[in-house]
Every structure is written in structure tokens, then in C-alpha cells.
């Protein structure tokens, strides 16, 4: 049995099905019984914040043509692009009472420490929720809290194809051509590999981040794996929520008149799993 002074850590990922990845993330938040850290990756997807209206954020036609999916997460914040070159970290802290700002600061400073330990220079936490290297964003975080726990997750660009990001996120397309916005609105980004000039393996990052967080929280690392019961709950949530248009395309109907029919069709296609992805879930054998 694990003790309360330890930090449970595992890699739990299903890059083939982004909808399931996000379903598991919510179960990970609500069900973790002790401080737990998850690392995971997604294949090509735009993950939007809980309060975002998809047509205001994403070029759906472009995304569909590039084979990119769309999933809404349960935390606030902005749209991010994930591919296999992006590493996600997620931390659930049951029994901790931290504000959103404090949560960002704890995890942000640990991630900075982790990157420094890997040789990244000029890396710092930039409130509210960014980690930057010499003015360029390398990781963004999101968080939420409830009466008995806090949750923080972040996406870190390690070797992602950044050019895709500008193609599918709406703000950039409209603002990039306008000089007034290029500095102030379009945040410039970089990747870990780019700043280090070498390839960093995900495992190296997992180790560095867990060690930094374990020091910060005063908890001992205990490598673990998700429980079958957690996976079953994730499957349930996948079916009821994350694989549905009702959840992913929330706040679309209200602005439907602004969306062309082609764009609307594209949105409906990218915001739910493909047949192949549904099959992938079946073979997990969780039922």
C-alpha cells in the first residue's frame, strides 16, 4: 500500500485516440487518492479550453485536411496543438488547497527546474501559465480546483511541428497579416530540442520533471501504473462525454450563423473519433 508521503508517477497514454486520452485525464483528476503525476502524449489534435467556442479558435477545414482532431478538455485556458513531439504532464493533488495562481507557480517552477537540469538556459516561469525560454513559449499549463483537490496539467513542445500550429489556430491566421498584432498577440514559441540543439527523449523529461516536483512537494517518487478501475471509468466517460459532439462542439450552435456549411461539416468530423479510433478502444478490452 502506498503511503501518503509519496508521489505516484506513471506514463499512461493512448496517442491513437485523443478522446480517450482526455477522458482518462478527467478520471485521473477526480479519482486519484494520493498525489499523482501522469505523463502522456497525443497524436495530432487541437485541445481547446473548457470555455472556448470551437469556431472562434480553430480552422476546422484546414484541421480536417491535415488529419487533426478536436477535443475539449475540462480545464480552462486556450487552445493547444498536440502531436507526438509534444509531452504532457498532469498532476493531481488531493487534499491540497491552492489557488489557481499558486498551483501554476508550484508546477511552473518545478518544470523550469527540470528543464534547467537538462541544460536549458534562460528558462523561467511566466505567470499566469507559461514557461518560456528567452522570450519564447515552450510549455503552457492549465488548472482547476475543487473542494478537496487541485489539478494542473501542461503541454511541452519537444519536437512538435510548430508550423501546423499557426495553420490550425484561428487567431494567428487573422492576426498574422496585421502588423499591429504580430508582436502583441501571436505568442512566439519554440521546442526543447530546438533550444538544446539536440534530441531529448520523452523519458529524460519524465524523469527530470518528476524529480523536480518530488523535491518541490517533499514527496518520494513511486513509479506506478493506472488501475483497471480507473481505465474502466475513463472508458465510461469517453463514451458519455469526450467522444461526443455535444461536449466537443459546445458553444457552436450559438454562433452557427457565422460558420459556413463546409466548416460546420468539418467541425463535426474532427470532433468525434474515426471508425479506426473506435476500434482501437474496443481492442483495449476494458468492457
Amino acid at each position, binding site marked *: 500500500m502506498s503511503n501518503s508521503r509519496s508521489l505516484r508517477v506513471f506514463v499512461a497514454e493512448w496517442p491513437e485516440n485523443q478522446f480517450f486520452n482526455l477522458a482518462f485525464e478527467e478520471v485521473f483528476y477526480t479519482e486519484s487518492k494520493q498525489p499523482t503525476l501522469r505523463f502522456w502524449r497525443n497524436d495530432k489534435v487541437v485541445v481547446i479550453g473548457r470555455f472556448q467556442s470551437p469556431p*472562434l479558435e480553430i480552422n476546422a477545414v484546414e484541421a480536417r485536411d491535415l488529419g487533426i482532431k478536436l477535443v475539449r478538455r475540462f480545464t*480552462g*485556458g486556450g487552445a493547444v496543438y498536440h502531436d507526438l513531439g509534444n509531452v504532457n504532464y498532469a498532476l493531481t493533488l488531493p487534499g491540497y488547497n491552492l489557488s*489557481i495562481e499558486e498551483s501554476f507557480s508550484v508546477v511552473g517552477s518545478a518544470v523550469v527546474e527540470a528543464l534547467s537540469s537538462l541544460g536549458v538556459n534562460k528558462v523561467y516561469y511566466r505567470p*499566469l501559465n507559461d514557461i518560456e525560454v528567452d522570450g519564447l513559449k515552450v510549455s503552457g499549463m*492549465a488548472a482547476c480546483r475543487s473542494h478537496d483537490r487541485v489539478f494542473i496539467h501542461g503541454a511541452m513542445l519537444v519536437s512538435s511541428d510548430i508550423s501546423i500550429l499557426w495553420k490550425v489556430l484561428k*487567431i494567428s491566421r487573422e492576426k498574422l497579416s496585421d502588423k499591429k498584432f504580430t508582436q502583441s498577440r501571436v505568442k512566439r514559441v519554440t521546442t526543447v530540442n530546438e533550444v538544446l540543439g539536440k534530441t531529448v527523449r520523452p523519458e529524460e523529461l519524465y524523469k527530470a520533471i518528476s524529480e523536480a516536483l518530488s523535491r518541490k512537494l517533499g514527496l518520494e517518487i513511486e513509479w506506478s501504473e493506472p488501475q483497471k478501475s480507473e481505465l474502466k471509468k475513463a472508458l465510461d466517460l469517453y463514451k458519455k462525454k469526450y467522444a461526443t459532439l455535444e461536449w466537443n462542439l459546445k*458553444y457552436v450552435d*450559438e454562433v452557427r450563423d457565422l460558420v459556413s456549411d463546409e466548416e460546420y461539416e468539418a467541425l463535426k468530423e474532427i470532433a468525434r473519433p474515426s471508425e479506426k479510433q473506435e476500434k482501437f478502444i474496443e481492442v483495449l478490452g476494458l468492457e
Partner: protein
Amino acid sequence: MSKALIVCGEKKHAGGKIVKVCVKIFEDLVKGVVISGDFFVDPAEDFEELLQELAKIEVKREEVTALVSELLKKKKLDFSGITMEDVVEVLSRVLQQNQESFLKDFSS
């Protein structure tokens, strides 16, 4: 028959996050308000409830800002990255628009 008009606007809170507001106007009635953006709100569930209410709102154009402002205050929401005043400001500026617009920028 006249068509509903949707007007949208956005504002970036200095050094913070962006709030986007869209309003559906039909003649002199507002039939739905959408608040979107990359900010954080605690408690999220209470804000979501408010968004559901706002999506179905039906109120005179000149009364909507006061109403939304009151609803926001009643919920006691804790915004991070933007303020409640930002939301109300974008809403009131959006309502002054008379042409369909996609995210007109109101950042100062």
C-alpha cells in the same frame, strides 16, 4: 423576414488572457450571448451554468449589459487572466456594432 445578426468582439487583458464575446441580435432583441476565451474561472461549474443561461437569454438590446453584469456578480466567480469588467466591457462594445463582425478587437 429579417435575419438574426451575430456580432463578436474580443479583448486581451494587458499581460493576461483573451475574452471573446458574441451576441445574437434579432431586431431589437438579444437572443443569446456567448462568452469564450482562454481564461480560467473558479468554480468552473458555476460559470458553465451561467453560459447555459446566457445562450438562451432573450432580452431587450439595451438591457442585456446590465443583466449579464448582474448575473456575473451573483455567481461570485473568481476569474484568472481576465476580470469580470473585461467581459462586461467587450459585451457593451459588441452591442454598439450594427454589422456582422468576426471578433472585432477592442484591446486597448
